């Protein structure tokens, strides 16, 4: 029972990180109908930036803020320079461009920062929390991780739902032509979408790197699970991202903890595929697919 609690809680923490990546993918998907394969690579890069700042200034929070700003900038610059020219080209071109960007960023990180594992600081203590004598299996910092992602998601949801900036972004995402005819500068909105996605990715990088170490490929596996979470939840649904992330994080923890007699971690990717296949067979556009998915 204690083990179940521990598995659930630590699963939620990892799930929230998958959710952050998933959310950034959803932001870009809704705006540009494009999967950004460089999302993990961008997060890795901005986290290296944060690490440099932390080493130089010994201030975690300064590094944190700079990394978020770097994420915004990297997202916007990426959209303006290499994504925009591909948008009216054959559809896969922009995907290959994001793959190229991923490889480029990993190469650059290797050149600038070397290929070693670098430990990344946490915001709060990692020592485990207890209720009475029961260890929860998560530390104060894990609580911060979960809350940070949740808060960011909620802020985004409010902005999207209740502000005119949010309305512009949603309109541009759902129907670019109508949005333009309503006077919305769709191109600018897309850039903002990429910038926000960059910010979310940077947040994910900052939050996950203490538990994964930082190195050029460190976000690859996280990206794959984040992508899986986005697909599970439905690529048009931010709420789906969070649900998908948590379901994946907790589900994989149960598989690793209870299946295969100590060798469950081998089965995790197989379990993730199984989960994905089952969900998609029942709901081909993800768990949170809207009532109306037909699109012209």
């Amino acid at each position, binding site marked *: 029972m*204690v*083990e179940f609690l*521990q*598995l659930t809680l*630590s*699963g939620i923490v*990892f799930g929230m990180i998958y959710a952050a990546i998933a959310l950034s993918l959803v932001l870009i998907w809704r705006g540009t109908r494009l999967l950004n394969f460089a999302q993990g690579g961008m997060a890795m890069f901005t986290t290296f930036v944060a690490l440099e700042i932390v080493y130089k200034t010994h201030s975690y929070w300064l590094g944190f803020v700079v990394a978020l700003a770097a994420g915004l900038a990297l997202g916007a610059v990426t959209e303006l320079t290499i994504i925009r020219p591909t948008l009216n080209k054959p559809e896969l071109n922009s995907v290959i461009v994001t793959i190229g960007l991923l490889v480029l960023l*990993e*190469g650059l990180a*290797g050149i600038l920062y070397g*290929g*070693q*594992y670098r*430990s*990344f*600081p*946490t915001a*709060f*203590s*990692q*020592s*485990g929390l*207890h209720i009475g004598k029961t*260890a929860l*299996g*998560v*530390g104060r910092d*894990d609580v911060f991780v979960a809350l940070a992602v949740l808060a960011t998601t909620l802020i985004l949801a409010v902005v999207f739902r209740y502000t005119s900036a949010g309305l512009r972004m949603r309109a541009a995402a759902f129907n670019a032509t109508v949005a333009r005819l309503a006077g919305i500068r769709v191109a600018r909105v897309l850039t903002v979408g990429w910038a926000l996605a960059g910010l979310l990715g940077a947040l994910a990088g900052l939050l996950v790197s*203490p*538990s*994964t*170490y930082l*190195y*050029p*490929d460190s976000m*690859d*596996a996280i990206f794959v699970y984040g992508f899986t979470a986005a697909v599970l939840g439905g690529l048009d649904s931010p709420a789906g991202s969070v649900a998908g992330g948590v379901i994946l994080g907790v589900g*994989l*923890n*149960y598989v*690793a*903890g209870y299946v295969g*007699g*100590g*060798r*469950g*971690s*081998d089965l*995790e990717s197989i379990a993730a595929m199984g989960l994905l296949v089952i969900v998609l067979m029942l709901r081909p556009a993800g768990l949170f697919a809207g009532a109306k998915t037909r699109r012209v």
Partner: protein
Amino acid sequence: MNSCSRSLLTLGLASLVAVAACSSSSSTPAVGSGGSSGGSSSAALTASAPGITPTTITIGSHQPLTGPAAPGYSEIAPAANAYFQYVNAHGGVYGRKIVYTYHDDGYNPTTTSSVVHELVLQNNVYAIFNGLGTPTHLAVVSFLNSQKVPDVFVASGCQCWGETPSQYPYTFGWQLDYVREGKILGQYVAQHFAGKKIGYFYQNDEFGQDGVKGLDYQIPSSMVVSRQSYVPTNVNIAPQVAALHAAGAQVVVSFSIPAFTALLKLTSLKLGYSPQLVVSNVGSDPTTLAGLLNTFSKGAVNGGSLVNGIITDGYLPSAGDASNSWITLFKMVHDTYVPRLPFDGNVLYGEAAAYTFVSALFKAGRNPSRQDLVNAIQAGLPQGPAIGPYGYSTSSHYGITGAYIGTIANGVITQQGSALVTDTTSSGAISTFSGTEQSAPSDGIPPH
């Protein structure tokens, strides 16, 4: 030193002209093979084998310089190369300079196959040295043996390199294999923690599985309460640690890479769980571990103290042991040629392997064929920096066969008792090594 090497170079150039003049006299006699014919003026240097010219010896390797295995392992080849540069600057190997070409394979066997084909077929290397990784190197071991290319000191503790010289006559292991390591650690655990509950935590590949095999030869299965494995691509090991905790394991024996040793420590911290850790050599480098744990435990405890008390084994001197002559030598080489790398277990590993290779090259003679190198190693190598003796013979291509048990304290592995040697069988005894450790040659060049 400097003028000496220059004169050797001139000699080399002269002989190059001589060879060119003689044109196609391909059947070069192998001069001074296997012997210690280190005499200065005996025979001219010739292009005695592919990759050998009168002035150079070109060797190749495949290494994970990028990709998931790069952290840690990408230091090894530069460190080995640093030692080769040191040798080159101090007279080379009978005047020849070692040219070390190592290609990145990203730890992908398909790429390994591609780069090794290039090294052998295109770059005509004399030998493949210290190719890193079990799955990667398995992709090229048959090719290298079919091409009769010496495949020496594979950087992996798989039994595959040493067990069957008849199948792979050109392949040689070097580091302590994981089964022997498991046996030595297992014996220690069985003796010192009798009656305790033991848990295993291991990387689910041949490294961890062979290690567990060795452990099981020594630890009664009734003592083992939980066996948890991980895959290196998945950093979330909370489930495994929770299971070890739930099973009440008081001692956890870990066959893990340093990152996962650190994660094991960290995740235990979150559970308020502090078992005695016994960690294989691969995952216990104190420098690396302290670095990985330092920022983790920010505020609570410091990284160095988290590492204290870990029990491990070593087949080379500990990098933190400044009084050891080998460490002095390798630290000096490190500081001169690759000062930007941390002086940790990986750097030490690369330099020690390179030292062993140079030692073998000297033994192979002034103008060695490829077979001469193989014969020289099979005839046995001096122990050099290793703690235990090499197992090289015509019937065994195992490298180091023994190790000591040590405890980490203040960034150094402190040796407990004397070195132990054993074999890879389930019943083979573990005995105290009767020989003595050697000290490093004063000029840093293997005696010849």
